[in-house]
């Protein structure tokens, strides 16, 4: 077997093995690139309004009654004074902040985009520990695939022909950005 054929087989096998990781990093990369425009981890819904004039604010603060008065069915898991006339009521990961002076409320419902969140946590290396070893292995695998990819074909479509030009243009794009914005 020639060196090129052996390289081709290895490139193919690495490609298969890292299929899952490539998809996770690609999807998460897209999601995190646009983090300024949207929240890739949670879907937030905010509802604001006024509390019923018939509600009294204690003490003790009737937190469950307040939550129920605006149609919330979640169980109150705790509450804390968050300002001069403000209280933050926790309903699991959702929260309800009330202003006892202005008798207003702000309810924030949080829904986790669990699959995307998991992808992002893997991509951004939040797990650390053993995960670092596997993601380092993936990084080395990508490096191997990038370099071995250059030598898969020879001739007109190989490194000395079209392939070489494409690789050069691909390298020039980040070089251009570094030159324009980072030096």
């Amino acid at each position, binding site marked *: 077997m020639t060196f090129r054929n052996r390289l081709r087989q290895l490139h193919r096998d690495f490609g298969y093995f890292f299929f899952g990781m490539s998809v996770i990093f690609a999807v998460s990369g897209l999601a995190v690139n646009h983090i300024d425009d949207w929240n890739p981890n949670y879907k937030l819904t905010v509802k604001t309004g006024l509390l019923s004039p018939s509600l009294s604010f204690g003490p003790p603060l009737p937190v469950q009654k307040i939550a129920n008065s605006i149609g919330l069915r979640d169980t109150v898991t705790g509450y*804390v004074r968050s300002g*001069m006339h403000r209280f933050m009521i926790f309903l699991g990961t959702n929260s309800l902040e009330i202003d006892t002076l202005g008798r207003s409320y702000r309810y924030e419902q949080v829904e986790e985009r669990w699959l995307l969140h998991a992808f992002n946590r893997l991509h951004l290396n939040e797990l650390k520990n053993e995960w670092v070893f596997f993601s380092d292995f993936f990084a080395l695998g990508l490096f191997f695939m990038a370099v071995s990819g250059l030598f898969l074909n020879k001739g007109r479509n190989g490194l000395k022909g079209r392939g070489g030009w494409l690789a050069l243009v691909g390298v020039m794009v980040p070089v251009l950005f570094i030159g324009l914005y980072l030096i």
Partner: protein
Amino acid sequence: MMLKSALFTLLSFSLLLAGEAKHYGKKLTLEKTTPIEAIDKAPESFVGKTVLVEGTVVDVCKKRGCWIKVVDDKSGSSLLVKVKDGEIVFPLEARGKTARVEGVFQKLESTMEETVEHAKKACKLEGKEFDPATVTKPDVSYRLKALGAVIK
């Protein structure tokens, strides 16, 4: 029978873990806490100092987990705790839990342009229309740059 006892063990273990304190970043070194109310009343005297604070987490950065807002239950005074992106990631589940945070207290002075930009962003987040007349002077804010935290 075996399945039931296995499930019971798993459930007990999960409940034990649920109540366990979670550590973030460096180990806490200070023992004495500084009340958030004291910092809130005289922030200038704490600038540059390393302090340990304790309070309830009322909000968490939902995009990057890079900050939490901690309040003192009695006074209602609050403190913004910031970490370097990616170094510590606070989970949204921290809301409503008690946090002990050690860090360096910082003063941030924005330029007028930065203040306008911040106000614009805040209005956009809340869905309000930005009125430039509301920004009259550059913003000065304080925060705790966290080194380590324990949340339970």
